[in-house]
């Protein structure tokens, strides 16, 4: 959910863009972190752990911990808490540690 009215802060956002998340089309703002756009759209489960498939979301939101790793445009282990959203991005829940298909 996005903050509509804040007593002290103004949120300057880029253009509205469409992106894909696990086959769905979602909207966000260009340049904001992918994880923020997902959060605003109600998506908080970003990956699943390798062995027990436990749902994982973000933790530090600053690029330190790798909890938010997702597959973005085919590239695994993208830190979605800092990676800026772009039009047409394909974002997928990462299963386990992520594999690079070269």
């Amino acid at each position: 959910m996005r903050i509509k009215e804040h007593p002290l802060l103004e949120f300057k956002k880029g253009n509205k863009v469409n992106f894909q998340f696990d086959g769905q089309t979602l909207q966000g703002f260009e340049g904001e972190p992918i994880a923020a756009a997902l959060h605003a759209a109600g998506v908080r489960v970003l990956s699943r752990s390798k062995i027990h498939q436990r749902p994982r979301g973000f933790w530090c939101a600053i690029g330190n911990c790798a909890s938010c790793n997702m597959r973005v445009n085919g590239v695994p282990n993208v830190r979605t808490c800092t990676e800026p959203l772009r039009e047409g991005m394909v974002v997928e829940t990462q299963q386990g540690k992520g594999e690079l298909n070269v």
Partner: protein
Amino acid sequence: MLSRSGVPTKKQIESVKPSKERLAKGAVAIVECFQEIPCDPCHTACNSGCILPFADINDLPQMDFDKCNGCGVCISACPGLAIFVVDESYSEEEALVMIPWEFTPVPEEGAVVRGLNREGEAVAPATVKKVRSSPQKNGAYIISLVVPKELAFEVRSIG
């Protein structure tokens, strides 16, 4: 105890009150600051020198109640939002209390809202007499509330 509950004790509040005579004369600033932390902008905020110069940055603020006219400029300069203005001369039964406010919605003048005490409990209806932007233009508001006089040292927020 303040360090356990986050709420000043009655004794602490008494320690920052001016005399009954001074309270009856008109608006005056009440600085509810009880912990020695490195902080002193309240002193520079007051244009009339009512908050005395600090010998050490960790000192608690000291008031000159006689100089103070309760203008409230210090309310929105205190980083801890710990300063309030109380005017017990407002009327026979009522007092005016000025509080800092950094939330939306900002109440409308004339509205009747719930007056909350330091524990966030509703203790009385409060009428919003005046709403002004902080003199420092920092986004905070100063709200003047009309409350029952016996609650002048209880009402510190609205909800």
